[in-house]
């Protein structure tokens, strides 16, 4: 920075910078001040990166069963970074012992058996982004024949950490796709309602109020129960998103309508109309850009609701079905007291849900506050 001139010109420069900045730049400046929202942004990005290539972040194949590691406890507490003074991350292996009387299996940490960990190690083969066959994983045991269970294993000996990674893909994408579909319905119906007003507006408004007054879960359950059990997983996945958006569009339509209503009488819209611009041009060139930011904020706040809904449906057994892995499906494993009492680490997918929902909520809150940078 060379311009260390007097304070007054600097203020001027700031004001000039502010006046010349585009709307999106202003929003970014206002968003950046929001610390929690920035954290939310980074966590959300991180989760979506995991969702893009979950296998890269996995340690072992999420659907591979292993009879010798049933309810293997988490090894995260046995993680050590230094070995005899030098930096060599490793975990202690665990040995299966049986109680001599009850024959109940217990896992005991075995400090003599060290499993060394490395970055970018070779592991099971998978398709990166569904395109290239790859064997590299972000981290894992250096020796591919070793197994580690950072977050433990479930009742079939599958690695919980890897399953959470795999679940991120389904759970996070179902939120996005479901919100996208709700947004399509919401923009069309909310737009019609707010732009034309009158009788159509009245009818759509009553419909929205009606839908918002209904309890969502029973309706979702009834719709999901209508899906045939023997459908392929992709069909079910698609239909679940459709079902979620059938109920979820109402809130977004309301936001869109409100924006249309308030913008309809704005000077620049009236000016465009007087200039003889077509209705399509007014909507897409004049109105849509000016409330895009509000839509983005509402959409971000709608995603967590979708994620929670999918989790609840799958948890109750009427959403996605195993072998599909989503966070809700994983939490089904934790459904009864007996299994969570023996393996409390089965709650871990729940923590993933909470982190994702929190991050998206913070991000959405920050976006909503930044959405109108001309305020104040």
């Amino acid at each position: 920075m060379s311009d260390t001139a007097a304070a007054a010109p600097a203020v001027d420069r700031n004001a000039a910078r502010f006046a010349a900045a585009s709307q999106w730049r202003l929003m970014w400046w206002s968003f950046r001040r929001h610390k929690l929202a920035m954290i939310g942004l980074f966590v959300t990005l991180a989760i979506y990166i995991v969702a893009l290539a979950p296998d890269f972040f996995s340690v072992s194949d999420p659907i591979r069963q292993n009879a010798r590691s049933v309810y293997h406890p988490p090894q995260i507490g046995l993680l050590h970074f230094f070995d005899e003074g030098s930096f060599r991350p490793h975990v202690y292996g665990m040995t299966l012992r049986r109680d001599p009387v009850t024959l109940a299996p217990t896992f005991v940490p075995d400090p003599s058996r060290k499993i060394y960990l490395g970055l970018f190690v070779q592991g099971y083969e998978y398709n990166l982004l569904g395109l290239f066959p790859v064997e590299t994983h972000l981290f894992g045991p250096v020796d591919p024949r070793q197994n580690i269970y950072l977050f433990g294993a479930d009742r079939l000996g599958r690695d919980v950490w890897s399953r959470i990674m795999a679940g991120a893909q389904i759970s996070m994408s179902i939120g996005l796709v479901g919100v996208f579909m709700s947004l399509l319905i919401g923009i069309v119906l909310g737009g019609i309602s707010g732009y034309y007003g009158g009788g159509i507006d009245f009818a759509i408004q009553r419909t929205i109020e009606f839908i918002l007054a209904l309890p969502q879960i029973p309706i979702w359950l009834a719709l999901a129960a209508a899906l045939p059990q023997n459908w392929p997983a992709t069909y079910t996945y698609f239909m679940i998103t459709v079902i979620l958006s059938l109920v979820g569009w109402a809130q977004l339509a309301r936001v869109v309508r409100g924006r249309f209503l308030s913008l309809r009488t704005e000077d620049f819209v009236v000016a465009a109309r007087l200039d003889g611009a077509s209705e399509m041009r007014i909507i897409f060139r004049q109105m849509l850009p000016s409330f895009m930011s509000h839509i983005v904020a509402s959409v971000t706040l709608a995603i967590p609701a979708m994620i929670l809904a999918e989790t609840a449906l799958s948890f109750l057994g009427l959403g996605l079905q195993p072998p599909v892995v989503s966070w809700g499906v994983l939490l089904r494993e934790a459904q009864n007291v007996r299994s969570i009492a023996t393996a409390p680490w089965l709650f871990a997918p729940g923590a993933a849900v909470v982190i994702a929902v929190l991050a998206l909520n913070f991000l959405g809150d920050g976006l909503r506050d930044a959405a109108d940078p001309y305020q104040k």
Partner: protein
Amino acid sequence: MLGFIVKRLMWMIPSLFVVSFLAFVLIQLPPGDYVTTYIATLAASNEIVDQTAAADLRARFGLDQPFIVQYAMWVTGIVTRGDFGLSFEWQQPVSGLIWERMAFTLLVTGSTLLLTWALAFPIGVYSAVRQYSIGDYFFTFLGFLGLAIPSFLLALVMMYIAVVEFGQEVGGLFSDRFVNAPWSWAKVEDLLKHLWVPVVILATNGTASLIRIMRANMLDELHRPYVTTARAKGLSEFRLLVKYPCRLAINPFISTIGWLLPNLISGALIVGVVLSLPTAGPLLLQALMAQDMYLAGAFILLMCGLTLIGTLISDILLALVDPRIRLE
């Protein structure tokens, strides 16, 4: 005021009609009907049902009629005789199965609503009056957490803690010895001992969002000139708060019944399943899985009807509190 109430009541008629139609469409959606399921069950145990027997069964349950006729029969039965049809799975009238369950659902959601208000009102006011204090941050954080934790997860965690730390199982609304016992003081006491678990779980979520609403409302009011005037006149801070801004800020609070109740009913369903409460949720889930359509339909109809009535009550209350609304 009377005009407003009458007009609002008139709206209930088409709404209830649409809800009943919706419930019926929902239960008709699954491919096949109960007889198909029944035959499949019998076939699994190597019993073969011939076509005429299946047709007889369909005729007996009225399943061979066109959709709209079945709907008309169903609604007429409910309105005139309180007859919700027959539960195929339980082989008894639906009306005998649902009322006790709905009563417990109402009890759980009603208590939750009361607890939510009792918690959210003072905390919301406190957070607004002491904005950016440690307490405010604490409750805001708690609020975000409450919004992010699904209620069933909270129920599972509570169950886990109860089992591991206290060595007892939570779940149900009664202890074993009271489940089938006739009503007595001891049974009510036992009920209260169990009731708090689902109520606290369900209240977390609603309280979190209500606190944020109350805080925002209060913040809008606190800097109005009338507050400054009242303070300048020497009114004590507490009386001032209760007398003016609280009364204005409570408006949107009342309207929350409208959207809180649907959420509560939804939440109560899942928590009911997890904690195996004798509420509507577990039975509805079971009925949906078994395609026991009249039973499922009755629950969906009653749950939706309940939330519509909740919205009605909140609208009327709002009009009572705020004259601007009823004159609109």
